[in-house]
């Protein structure tokens, strides 16, 4: 007589599942979601009007911030001005993306969206705090942008995809700029970096939360955005000189802040 009673969820059929088959069965339970969104739908355009505005505003502020940083690090002003020009170019590219879809960017929303980080950057600038300003612009905002662009590229419309792919390469250069400066001045910067992280990372977390519903319409998952942001941010902190335990503690604010 059979000695096995194997009852699958589907019924009483005895079944053996290899590890692979089992995992595959579980994995396909969730749709792979490979289909692109309908770029012409009103729901998509509505969400895009805010996401696109955030990107345009982010690039504009990045431009302004790099110019401002040049006043704090005069010997770097030329290089910073070069970075700033790149950000303006990006801004124009993303403006064209909205026009291509027939969307008007919701700029008032975007300006308000960036208020906390903008205020903290301006305060740092007034106090001559290079480290704080670099952390906000060159680490947090750049890592945020890199994450958003990475997650966006596979689900973007063809026009925006080409533009975003070109932009993301530049943003690595910008992240790298802040990273290298802070690495060279690590011991002197450490305490201020930790404090600026505590003050600003929670804002990034809240910004990601605020944008999550609109991002979901564009098929960008919140968990993927946060994870990608943390990978870029942690990588930068590693390069700068923090050890993995310090980084885990600093970065956790982005997860549960």
């Amino acid at each position, binding site marked *: 007589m059979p000695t*096995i009673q194997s009852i699958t969820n589907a019924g009483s059929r005895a079944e*053996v599942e290899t590890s692979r088959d089992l995992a595959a069965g579980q994995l396909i339970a969730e749709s792979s979601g490979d289909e692109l969104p309908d770029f012409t739908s009103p729901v998509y355009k509505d969400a895009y009007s805010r996401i696109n505005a955030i990107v345009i505003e982010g690039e504009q502020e990045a431009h302004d911030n790099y110019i401002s940083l040049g006043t704090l690090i005069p010997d770097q002003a030329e290089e910073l001005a070069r970075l700033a020009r790149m950000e303006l170019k990006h801004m124009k590219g993303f403006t064209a993306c909205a026009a291509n879809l027939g969307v008007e960017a919701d700029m008032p929303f975007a300006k308000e969206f960036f208020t906390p980080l903008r205020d903290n950057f301006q305060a740092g600038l007034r106090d001559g705090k290079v480290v704080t300003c670099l952390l906000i612009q060159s680490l947090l905002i750049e890592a945020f942008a890199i994450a958003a662009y990475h997650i966006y590229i596979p689900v973007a419309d063809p026009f925006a995809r080409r533009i975003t792919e070109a932009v993301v390469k530049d943003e690595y250069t910008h992240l790298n700029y802040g990273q290298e400066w802070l690495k060279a001045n690590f011991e002197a910067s450490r305490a201020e970096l930790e404090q600026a992280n505590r003050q600003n990372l929670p804002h990034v977390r809240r910004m990601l939360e605020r944008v999550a519903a609109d991002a979901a319409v564009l098929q960008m998952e919140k968990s993927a955005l946060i994870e990608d942001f943390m990978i870029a941010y942690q990588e930068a902190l590693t390069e700068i000189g923090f050890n993995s335990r310090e980084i885990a503690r600093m970065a956790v604010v982005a997860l549960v802040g």
Partner: protein
Amino acid sequence: MFGLIGHSTSLAAACELAERLGYPEYAQGDLDMWCSAPPQLVENFSVTSATGKTIEGAYIDSVFVPEMLRRFKTAKRKVLNAMELAQKRGIAITALGGFTSIIFEDMNLLKEQQVRATTLEWERFTTGNTHTAWVICHQVELNAPRIGIDLAKARVAVIGATGDIGSAVCRWLSQRTGVAELLLVARKQQPLLDLQSELGGGRILALEEALQQADVVVWVASLPESLSIDPANLPNPCLMIDGGYPKNLDSKASGAGIHVLKGGIVEFHRDIDWQVVALAAEMAKPQRQMFACFAEAMLLDFEELHTNFSWGRNHITLEKMELIGAASLRHGFQALGLDSLSAPAPSLATA
């Protein structure tokens, strides 16, 4: 340098590990938080072979937990991001442990070679399946005689026979070990017929029939939750090697004459000074026992074979098994045996 990509066995285990390591915020996180967390290189350690050679290793927690299996994109992301981290840290050969290699193959991640700015270099990774298959075969050969089974007269059932590890085990047992008869069990018929033809033998059976006849059962399949085994209907004695993942056969089969052995587990000749791996792996002797797939990364590094030694499906040859098996013995690994279960040496366990 070699790497190990691992993960906790459940969300609860991941939280407990985080608590013990001093990360209370992670410990209190829910599944959504863990889905958003990036992989972490959590530990570096060195390992010294029985030959005296010392190599450096790193453990990467992919932050995957099995509860994420139903989240297709998340599971995929965890594996790729952990692999990217290993490569960015310059690790020459990294083993994909636990569900990592299963997800990699099931979701065909070979077509996802580009991860952000990184092009994954496949030669830096191994599934570790060749060593796992060799260890399982070695466990059959060493332990069957200990409980009075003569393999030359024995029927050996392989459950999950057509998988990467299963088919390698079948090849070895039929061509190297020389068992009396192989009983082939798997879900899909055509791959079974192909395997039978390749082996030039073996009997294709349903699970129930195979279990009634098999003196040795090699499980390289995960068990359905609802599976139950009536020990009264199994041959006595019966050796069961639990080579699936996760390893839960001992909860399904027990009784007089039934000997369940965790398959694909090896014990190193000396303690390894690792803390996180010891906590995460849930082994009886956590300082020296590990999955054979992890050990394969160490062996490849000891042997300076920096290549994707085990890769893709059904590419495991007998020659490769011989090579990795010889390296395993040379560098001081021993397959987990029945004696180490029934009579654990306390002095070693706490050494």
